[in-house]
């Protein structure tokens, strides 16, 4: 007799009420993964898709071949960028709770990924981000006030009140308009990079997607096109373990890692400790150099953890153990970089406390400035006329008629 078939639904290691269990996250020693030349044959680094590149060890020392050539000033800047993003998140989360906007999404635990990546890019390069890469803007020097005006959809909102909070856009800052539909922009980044190559330009693109949205067809389309045309693009997968309530195993399926998705396409794939600012920067630089030198795409998986809720509409205690975020074995990216700069004598606990105060004051000042131009339900709001602008380059007759109907 043949045994009946059994249907398989993957489950995370632990659920609410259980103890956090990260025994399946195998973490190699810092400094233990080799750093190949950027023109390496992808076949020779297949193992990199299953390991984790790490630089910062438990004592806050930078070790191994991936240690990047960042001076003290650059490290302090990186730390300050992450602190700014965390302070910004705290204030905007609170602003949402106070009813000043409809929605917010924090980065807690993932600050290193976008902050470090941005620093490795050159002017003119283009990111196609998701909603959890605002560090690209913060590290890119985009004004906090403009970000807040977008979140408040106020009269100074650069996007004129049209977009959900945090779905920023800034061409000048290399930040493509974010779509609320997941993964759509992964393939667009590849197209942008193809265009750059067609024109004989030197600019490269960076695509971003979360672990959950790698399951979208757009992700696979992007890998096919990037592989076929050797597009100058860095394909970033931020694996923060959770897609709202769905653990990463539902999107990953039988694949060992998300990085391994690149292997079948002949795309070199690296897996990196996403909570290690130095490792993220170093891997980003490697992948960006490959793209810039016409060597084609690289797939990078950032192993990190979404320490907060998915959004202000989410409560993670309903689907994962409360203590899970404290149990995350790769720690807090901000604390780890702080410990490092203290260990090398570039920083101190006192200076850190002082910096925290300064940064919070800057963020609060920016918030006050932004609120002068209104919040979602109070003060200045964009005009109803703005609904009808930019649907087309020039409003066609039917939109002009509709605009007249609401009397604007």
């Amino acid at each position, binding site marked *: 007799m043949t045994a009946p078939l059994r249907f398989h639904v993957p489950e995370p290691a632990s659920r609410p009420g259980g103890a956090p269990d990260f025994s399946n996250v195998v973490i190699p020693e810092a400094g233990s993964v080799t750093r190949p030349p950027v023109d390496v044959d992808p076949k020779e680094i297949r193992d990199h898709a299953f390991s984790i590149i790490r630089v910062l060890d438990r004592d806050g020392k930078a070790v191994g071949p991936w240690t990047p050539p960042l001076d003290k000033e650059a490290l302090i800047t990186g730390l300050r960028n992450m602190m700014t993003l965390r302070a910004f998140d705290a204030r905007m989360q609170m602003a949402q709770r106070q009813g000043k906007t409809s929605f917010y999404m924090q980065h807690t635990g993932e600050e290193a990924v976008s902050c470090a990546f941005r620093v490795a890019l050159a002017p003119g390069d283009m990111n196609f981000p998701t909603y959890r890469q605002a560090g690209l803007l913060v590290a890119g020097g985009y004004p906090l006030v403009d970000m807040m005006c977008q979140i408040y959809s106020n009269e100074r909102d650069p996007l004129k009140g049209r977009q959900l909070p945090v779905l920023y856009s800034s061409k000048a800052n290399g930040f493509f308009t974010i779509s609320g539909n997941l993964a759509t922009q992964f393939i667009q980044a590849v197209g942008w990079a193809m265009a750059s190559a067609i024109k004989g330009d030197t600019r490269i693109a960076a695509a971003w997607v979360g672990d959950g949205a790698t399951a979208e067809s757009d992700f696979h*389309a992007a890998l096919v096109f990037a592989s076929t045309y050797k597009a100058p693009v860095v394909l970033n997968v931020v694996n923060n373990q959770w897609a709202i309530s769905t653990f990463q195993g539902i999107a990953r399926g039988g694949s060992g890692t998300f990085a391994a998705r690149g292997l079948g396409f002949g795309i070199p794939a690296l897996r990196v400790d996403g909570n290690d600012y130095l490792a993220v920067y170093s891997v980003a630089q490697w992948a960006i150099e490959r793209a810039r030198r016409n060597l084609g795409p690289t797939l990078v998986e950032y192993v990190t953890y979404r320490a907060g809720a998915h959004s202000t509409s989410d409560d993670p205690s309903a689907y994962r153990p409360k203590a899970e975020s404290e149990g995350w074995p790769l720690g807090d990216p901000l604390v780890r970089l702080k410990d490092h700069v203290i260990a090398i004598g570039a920083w101190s606990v006192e200076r850190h406390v002082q910096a925290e105060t300064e940064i919070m004051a800057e963020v609060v000042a920016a918030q006050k400035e932004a609120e002068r131009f209104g919040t979602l339900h109070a003060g200045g709001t964009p005009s109803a006329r703005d609904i009808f602008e930019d*649907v087309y380059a020039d409003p066609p007759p039917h939109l002009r008629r509709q605009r007249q109907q609401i009397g604007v």
Partner: protein
Amino acid sequence: MIEAIRSAMDVSMGRDEDVVVFGEDVGFFGGVFRCTQGLQQKYGASRCFDAPINELGIVGAAIGMAAYGLRPCVEIQFADYMYPAYDQIVSEAARLRHRSAADFTCPLVIRMPTGGGIFGGETHSQSPEALFTHVAGLKTVVPSNPYDAKGLLIASIECEDPVIFLEPKRLYNGPFDGHHDRPVTPWSKHELGEAPDGHYTVPLGEAAIRREGSGVTVITYGTMVHVALAAAEETGVDAEIIDLRTLVPLDLDAIAASVKKTGRCIVLHEATLTSGFGAELVALVQEACFFHLEAPIVRVAGWDTPYPHAQEWAYFPGPARVGAAMREIMETR
């Protein structure tokens, strides 16, 4: 009409280095309908190339290219194959300009052969124009002859907005009037069958009157323009036949002027009836012309079924059905 479409791309690529053309089989081979034949040889593989069989990828990549600053003109091999790209078209191409407050724009043309009459069955015969006209931010174009096809396609490539360019495939080789049992008439005998050399445009948003008449206005586009002309000829009904050419933006002024003159209106398309673009036309006509109407507006369209294979001519709204509708509306007093 194939030569006219090819010439539009050729002229555009020659004038503007930012125009690139790609899609399934369009490179070396020149497309399954030969619309891109010779373009790769003339402009090189970086400006005209084959794409993987991935419509989502073709449109998604083209959106990225357009955002970069190119003017991609991509081919979806059959309109029936566009559904995997629909999210990219609706949620991305159509909205980049609006959601980014014009920080990013999407000057993109998506060409696709549309409609039936070639024994293509349900997956090579559909007319999905209403799925595009319903989406804010898109322009939708359907030419009915070679002269217009070239001028409209050049205008679409030069347009700053994303344009869906639907090519009635049954018109590729001649002005098909629905009489499938008669010999094929070539375009060479048609007054609009020749597309002049060089650059010219037919503006988006302007309808053309193909036959002037005083009895009834027929609002139509694409293949059905020729079917309507044949039906008018055969019934002797003095129909005024409007070829919309562009569905969005729509030339409502031309429509209203004609219906106010004739007092009767037939809306005609090959696409399925329910929620088709004809429903929008009927609504607009009654809003603009209600007090001029002498009879209820009549719709003639494809049946609300999948497009059949063997029963193609029972499905296709040919001159007999259109002619019957013309006679009937003329009898309404």
